[in-house]
């Protein structure tokens, strides 16, 4: 099992930076914080992902690179607008009131 030597925030920033590097169409990454769980929960807004009309999240176990359990979901920009209008639900426990957004300009500056 990996040890959590790095803070969650620094790991999130590394993941976000890497994903913006890799994905040209990635517009924004939202980090859903929670004091109740030591998991990193990210919602990525990317026009390349299939628009399935739901938020599908996938769990990845800690690794040397990401020493926290990681949950990632991808939605299109149109689906993100529907989430904001509460027409598509976020996974249970994810709240729009408690997230931090990373835009490409912020990260790549």
């Amino acid at each position, binding site marked *: 099992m990996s040890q959590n030597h790095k803070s969650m925030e620094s790991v999130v920033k590394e993941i976000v930076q890497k*994903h913006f590097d*890799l*994905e040209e169409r990635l517009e924004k990454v939202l980090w859903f914080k929670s004091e109740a769980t030591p998991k990193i929960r990210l919602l990525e807004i*990317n026009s*390349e*992902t*299939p*628009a*399935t009309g*739901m938020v*599908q999240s*996938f*769990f*990845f*176990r800690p690794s040397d690179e990401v020493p926290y*359990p*990681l949950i*990632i979901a*991808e939605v299109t920009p149109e689906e993100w607008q529907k989430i904001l209008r509460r027409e598509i639900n976020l996974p249970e426990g994810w709240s729009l009131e408690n997230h931090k957004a990373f835009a490409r300009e912020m990260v790549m500056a």
Partner: protein
Amino acid sequence: MIDRRDWQLAFLNQARTDWEAYKKAEELMWPVCHRLHFLQMATEKLGKALLVAAESNLGEITHSHSALVKFMRVVSNNLDLHLQLGLTKSQLKAQFKGLLPIAHEIEILAPALAQDGPNPEYPRLDKSGCLCAPFDYSFPLIRLLESHQGIRLLKYIEYFPAEFEKLFLD
């Protein structure tokens, strides 16, 4: 009389429960071999749920482990899917083409297809002559599934059983 549609629904239901097992194994952080075993089984049955309707030889498809890649090639021509996802046929084909290498890696996890390569079920002798149990093997495929292409393939694998009736049976 059991017809092809009955076979379709039987494979579909098994694909759904295998997928649930995969998701549960992920959340509980079970060893990689078990998670990939469930993923291989879910995708094989998902593929068969569609292919069994068209294949002329029923026995050939029910006994084969090659189903996911063929399934993806077939569904990329599905008009309802284009409409549902708001993509053109060429966009969908291009997207699926990018996912096929990972789908192939999942498909050949089946021991019958893996030959001397890694499989998530049985110990094997690797190329250097070492005896390797799946439990001790790290499976590079798991890193591919964490990539954006991997996540998109997982999205489809979850989406198709959920929408199967609407897309393929109505």
